[in-house]
């Protein structure tokens, strides 16, 4: 039991333990650096699987909790826990990281040590985001994901890497700094950084409508930039195109989910009124994102950029599912987060394998690749099919659940969104046709080697998971159900208007009790005057 209770801490910080191990190795010892990084990430995956047997699917609250006081003076705690929403996202992270390490086996040749250290730090930070239940802790991890990714893009990226890295980090920081202000404001209103306490407090009181809208807006902006929701998506194609393969896999596979996860975890349950008020607009942006992302993807001549735009489209589905507020659509959205992580991660892995061979992403440089590389291209087709939501494969389940859920309340939304599903078939199959089918157009492509053993391991693993998630979806959705309903229940408080309005505690609350009168007048003036 004792071991159980620290499981989340172990999972969160295990990758970080690999960092000193890598640091002591010589920088030239590439083989061992890779092996140790892989070993750490595999161990991490195996340990994270231990979450499954201990996880109760009927329990809607957070499991494996850990609470310690961290910064006592500021009421900040180290509070971890997982529920049905975050459980699989943690697993997704631990599943994709070894693949990202494997795919960089050969392609990263410079500063190998730094590269794998950055990957391991990102893994810790991302898991930290998913499991922290203290807003301060959440924010710390949230910001910590940025710096290693910034280095991944900036050091090991392609030609325009510096532009892409700076754009990526400034965009995201702008969003998150306003979220920080919102977190502080929320603390000011509720006296806690702890998500559960804030939730409990908000359940019995109402926020003034304007305050709630502003807080919702600050949180939502940070998440929408991360997702990215149209029209905040412009950093994404650049970041994806310029990042090394592993960077793209992590970025698309997990990091974009931090945004949708944040919406589900914070925006919906904490500010349901505002969420309901803004849902029509957000739904509209999501639909625009779905269609726009798909259309732009269709006309790309750069394969990696094409895949990047598919993310805009697919995550539009996720946001749409979340803001339809039904159990089915939210479950579909969570499922689609996982699918997108696996499928788009896999697409980037495939694109990366092509890049390793030809050092280009231009579609017209390829053509007829099935002739020299039948195995690789068959798997690539399989992954494309999963991404375009072929029945029996994972993507279908997610999109289907979302569309059903959305259709219940907003038939028009559903029909617009469905067009995105059609478009995804167009751009993916067309791209596949141009890359893989027909005659070999470039002489250089004739002699390309087929998938190596390492690549086959990657591809078979991914394909296996895609198929498994396609046929065994109840194994996942059952575990999500209780938590999803919990979120919706928390949102229901919106209809109960009898609760008292949350009055922010007076600004004097923190004046030391030892000298109330010495400070009282000063603080009171503050309250009257300081309202710019």
């Amino acid at each position, binding site marked *: 039991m004792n071991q159980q209770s620290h499981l989340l801490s172990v999972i969160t910080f295990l990758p970080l333990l690999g960092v000193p191990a890598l640091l002591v190795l010589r920088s030239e010892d590439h083989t061992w650096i890779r092996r140790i990084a892989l070993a750490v990430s595999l161990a991490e995956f195996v340990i994270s699987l231990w979450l499954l047997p201990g996880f109760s699917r009927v329990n809607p609250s957070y499991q494996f909790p850990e609470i310690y006081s961290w910064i*006592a003076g500021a009421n900040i705690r180290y509070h971890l826990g997982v529920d049905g929403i975050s459980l699989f996202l943690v697993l997704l992270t631990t599943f994709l990281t070894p693949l990202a390490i494997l795919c960089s086996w050969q392609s990263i040749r410079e500063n190998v040590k730094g590269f794998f250290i950055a990957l391991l730090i990102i893994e810790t930070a991302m898991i930290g985001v998913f499991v922290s239940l203290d807003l301060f802790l959440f924010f710390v991890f949230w910001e910590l994901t940025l710096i290693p990714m910034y280095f991944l893009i*900036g050091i090991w990226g392609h030609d325009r890497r510096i532009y892409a890295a700076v754009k990526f980090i400034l965009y995201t920081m702008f969003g998150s700094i306003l979220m920080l202000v919102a977190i*502080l404001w929320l603390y000011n209103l509720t006296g806690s950084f702890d998500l559960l306490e804030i939730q409990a407090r908000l359940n019995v009181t109402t926020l003034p409508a304007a305050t709630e809208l502003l807080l919702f807006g600050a949180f939502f902006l940070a998440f929408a930039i991360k997702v990215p929701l149209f029209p905040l998506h412009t950093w994404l194609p650049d970041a994806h195109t310029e990042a090394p393969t592993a960077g793209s896999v992590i970025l698309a596979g997990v990091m974009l989910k931090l945004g949708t996860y944040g919406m589900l975890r914070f925006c919906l349950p904490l500010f349901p009124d505002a969420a309901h008020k803004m849902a029509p607009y957000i739904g509209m942006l999501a639909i625009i994102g779905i269609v726009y992302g798909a259309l732009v993807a269709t006309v790309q001549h750069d394969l990696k950029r094409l895949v990047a735009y598919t993310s805009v489209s697919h995550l539009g589905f996720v946001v749409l599912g979340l803001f339809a507020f039904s159990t089915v659509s939210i479950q579909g959205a969570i499922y689609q987060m996982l699918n997108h992580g696996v499928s788009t991660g896999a697409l980037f892995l495939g694109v990366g394998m092509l890049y390793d061979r030809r050092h280009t992403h231009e579609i017209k440089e390829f053509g007829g690749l099935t002739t020299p590389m039948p195995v690789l291209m068959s798997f690539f087709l399989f992954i494309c099919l999963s991404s375009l939501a072929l029945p029996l494969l994972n993507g279908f389940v997610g999109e289907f659940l979302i569309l059903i859920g959305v259709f219940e309340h907003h038939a028009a939304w559903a029909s617009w969104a469905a067009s995105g599903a059609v478009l995804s078939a167009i751009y993916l199959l067309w791209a596949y046709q141009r890359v893989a089918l027909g005659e070999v157009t470039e002489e250089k492509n004739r002699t390309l080697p087929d998938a190596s053993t390492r690549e086959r391991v990657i591809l078979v693993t991914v394909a296996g998971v895609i198929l498994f998630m396609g046929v065994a979806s109840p194994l996942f959705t059952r575990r999500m159900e209780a938590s999803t309903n919990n979120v919706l229940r928390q949102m229901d408080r919106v209809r109960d208007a009898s609760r008292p309005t949350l009055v922010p505690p007076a*600004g004097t609350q923190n004046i030391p009790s030892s000298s109330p009168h*010495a400070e009282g007048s000063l*603080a009171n003036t503050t309250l009257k005057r*300081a309202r710019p």
Partner: protein
Amino acid sequence: MQIPAEQITNIKRIAPEIALCFFGVLIMVVDSLLSATRKRSLIWLGLIGMLVALGCVEIAGSDPGPAYSDLIRMDAFSVFVHIIVIGAAALVILGSVQYLEHEGIQRAEYYALVLFAAAGMGILAGASELVTAFVGLEMSSISSYVLAGFRKRAAQSNEASLKYFILGSFATAFFLYGIAMTYGATGTTRIDLVRTTLQGLAHPPALAILGLGLIFVGLGFKVVAAPFQIYAPDVYEGAPTPVTALLASGPKAATFALMLRIFYVSFGSAHGTWFWAVWASAVLTMCIGNFAALAQTNVKRMLAYSSIAHAGYILVAFAASTAVGVAAVLFYLAVYVLMKVGAFLVLAHLGQTGEKRLEIQDYAGLGNKQPVLAACFSLFLLSLLGLPATGGFLGKFFAFQAALDSRIVWLVVIAAVNSVVGAYYYLRVIVAMYFWEPSKEYTPTRVAPTLTVALVIAAVGTLYLGVLPARVLALAKTAADSLFTSAR
């Protein structure tokens, strides 16, 4: 002969300043006995002086109270600021040995002046009477005027010294006028008596407000708050880099401490009057600092503008006008001193002889050539930027929290957006260090052990305050409380 117990207490409470001055004088005496090649060993004397002073602070802190009929006080607040300023001076001394050697200006006066400056700052931290504060201000300022011109063969350094001296004299004159006006309005120069007098009146008299305005000009100059920041970039850029580290940290911390005492205690009842001045100054300071820093290509100048921006963030906490705000200011100062001194000391090393290599392209590929130093520099820059898990983040965090606590929402939003603007120029240096191709002609120089120690202390301190701030935060809160209890 019997020394009255009261005198012993008095002496005990200014013992840190006595120790600093004593060792300063001692250094100058010993200097005449040393041959030119042995001068560098004077640093040990300086460091011992600092340690003794810190010991005195510790002893005096255990028995807080006023000294010399309340001209100066040793309370928790004063202790906290003492530790910050003496610590900053000690780090600067540790980090300057190699620099002075390279520049050929290894002289005893340097160490003595740093000690005198530290003594002046100590007086500022403890002053509970305005004329005493003036003495402290002059003592630290005059030492720093000389220090700014210490590279006497470099035109830039001379320019910095002269500029700092002339404008600084104006500022202190303003401060003195302010004291005179305050005296005229209230009939006293003691900080707590000014408070009692003003509290007795329904409205603060115009003369007192004028006095406060003049004091704000004088002290605003020293903390580099806009619109009195004009001199700072030139002075900071021209002064020898370790001196810049001192100028940007110590006097700023000490002067903020004095500002807290004067604004919060003396003029606490006139809060409504000064609140908007501080608010506007904070906005101006942050915006000017950050946006001007964006345009810089010289890293030293960029860091100079960044210290203007940081004065703005501190003013945000200052505007909170509560004990929480005081604690936030103090915590911010502790972090700020560590990261800023650290960053400037790295620059002092990287600049190499004659401070030739301060342009951003000079640092291209530094991450490959000197990975540890580059990592250290990145840490300071990321902390200045406000990345979580570094002290800089918590400094901003508590500052914003304190301001929000007092419902100063828009100022916090402006500060938050500003800190993203800041991200751009800090990251640019990191971009150069890690993402650019290494420049060919650069040959790294060895980092002296003393500098290593200074950088390690600064880096560990920055991380410590970022991850485990509870202890220092508690101290800052006690210090903040003592500021108000002393007012009664």
